[in-house]
């Protein structure tokens, strides 16, 4: 059964269509990865789901409740972990969690117990009385999560929860997401890190220009690019941009450069290798290493949108 039903959702900002007829179902118990480059419409969709902004068309049902009509009841079922760290720096970790918990009608001993549980869940119980201004970035991110899960929501929406943190906190957060899901929460997870989405999510939706361009089980999504191969060419010095010339090779679907690595997505990976090397040597690019690999989520994304996820 669908826990979240989005039907023909439209959001317009002046002349720009931020969300374009989005239709999507998210089932109970799923970890749903929502991917897309900046400006794809992910955050707008999340803001509509959370009842923060109103849609211009379509409707969203949360567990059967229409977010535009029964917004307070629907919000009771959800917890938002925003991309920005939305906590009070001047209040203790405990006071932060308790305050947001009180907005979900928690009070007294129940509030205290759940605040303790959520701080323990994110590994901050020993820092309960400390103020976040003394915390590291990773600890603040964990507190950001604790504030969203104190009321044990059915749905947890996480918008880039691991941006700019140390590996230890990142692993802690990823484990926490899995544990929340094991405990019965449905998770919507947006991230720029494909490896995170690959490791966590069982269903994935890819958005671009406000539209859902692909949606399905993780393995199905990867198959969308099954005929493609990725040629990763690591070079020491790329002064001349060879993208256009490489794009003209037969079978090449996309070419991108990230620092010193040229990524070529092609239906004929091995056969274009010689021509690609010729173009690079002609351009005085010194090749360090070449790898040919099977498609991953990043390449699926690139092949579907023509853009890198971090563009």
């Amino acid at each position: 059964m669908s826990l979240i039903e989005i039907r023909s959702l439209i959001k317009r900002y002046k002349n720009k269509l931020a969300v374009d007829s989005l239709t999507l179902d998210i089932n109970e118990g799923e970890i749903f990865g929502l991917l897309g480059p900046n400006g794809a419409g992910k955050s707008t969709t999340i803001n509509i789901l959370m009842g923060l902004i109103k849609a211009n068309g379509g409707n969203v049902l949360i567990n059967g409740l229409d977010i535009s009509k029964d917004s307070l009841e629907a919000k009771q079922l959800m917890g938002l972990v925003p991309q920005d760290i939305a906590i009070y720096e001047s209040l203790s970790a405990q006071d932060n969690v308790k305050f947001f918990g009180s907005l979900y009608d928690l009070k007294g001993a129940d509030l205290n117990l759940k605040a303790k549980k959520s701080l323990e869940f994110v590994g901050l119980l020993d820092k309960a009385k400390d103020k976040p201004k003394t915390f590291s970035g990773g600890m603040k991110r964990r507190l950001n999560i604790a504030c969203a899960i104190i009321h044990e929501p059915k749905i947890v929406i996480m918008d880039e929860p691991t941006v700019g943190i140390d590996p230890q906190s990142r692993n802690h957060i990823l484990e926490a997401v899995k544990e929340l899901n094991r405990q019965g929460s449905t998770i919507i997870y947006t991230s720029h890190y494909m490896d995170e989405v690959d490791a966590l999510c069982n269903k994935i939706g890819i958005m671009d220009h406000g539209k859902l361009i692909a949606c399905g089980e993780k393995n199905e999504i990867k198959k969308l690019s099954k005929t493609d191969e990725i040629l990763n060419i690591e070079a020491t010095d790329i002064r001349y941009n060879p993208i256009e010339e490489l794009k003209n090779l037969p079978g090449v679907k996309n070419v991108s450069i990230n620092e010193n690595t040229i990524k070529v997505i092609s239906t004929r990976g091995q056969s274009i290798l010689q021509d690609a090397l010729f173009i690079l040597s002609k351009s005085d690019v010194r090749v360090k290493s070449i790898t040919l690999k099977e498609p991953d989520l990043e390449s699926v994304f690139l092949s579907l949108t023509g853009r890198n996820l971090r563009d």
Partner: protein
Amino acid sequence: MKIFNISINYLKRIFTNPFLVILILAGSLLETFLVSSNINSASSSITDSISQKYTEVMIIGVNKTANINQLLCSSTLAYFLLITAIIMVGLNISDRKNKTFMRMYSCPVKKSTVILGNIIGQFLITFIVAVFYMFFSSIIFKISYGNSLVGIFIVTIFAVYLSASFGFFMSGLFKNSTAGVSTCAFILFFLALFSDSFSLSGDFDATSKFTLNKWIYESYYSLMQENPLSSITQNLIVLMLLGTLFNVLGILLYKREKTYE
């Protein structure tokens, strides 16, 4: 219940900043001390020179008249009640910047509850400032606030309402807290200047009508002179209308989409 949780949280945030609390609470008393010391030293030298030549006649049985210290206290109180609005400007803008407004709006709570909770918090802190100042100024500077405690209470409620509404309106205008707080402080300084709060000279009689301060300190001063509450009806109406106007303008600003950003 949620509304009071929001108000308590608002007050907690203020009291976690001891410097701000001391500045607001003690600042008004310090200003009164400095100005009244100057006035007293100036007036005592005049009195000394006069008393050498004349005999002072005191008439017993007529209403006590207000003195310059009472005028000073009423204008200082008005100024500090209004300056407390800066707290709301700073806190609400930081709520938007830190996305805590967004987080509150994502909880099952109405936008109006969040706004009203913050206004009640601001109302309470401004009321505390007023009570603190009146209590300590009556002890330290022996200021008499007249014989109508009810009247003083009513004026304080109206003045606090105006101050909180002004803060609410100003907090909706700015996205940057430094710009918001500085502009608000700048406006309040000029309002105080043109209301004659600083000089108490009577030079700004014409312009003072267009300031917020005048309607507040005139009300307090009238009650200090032991005039009846009915004598300040016009002032109370003006305070109420101005407060309501700022609230309406604030609501319009906060009604815009994405006001949590």
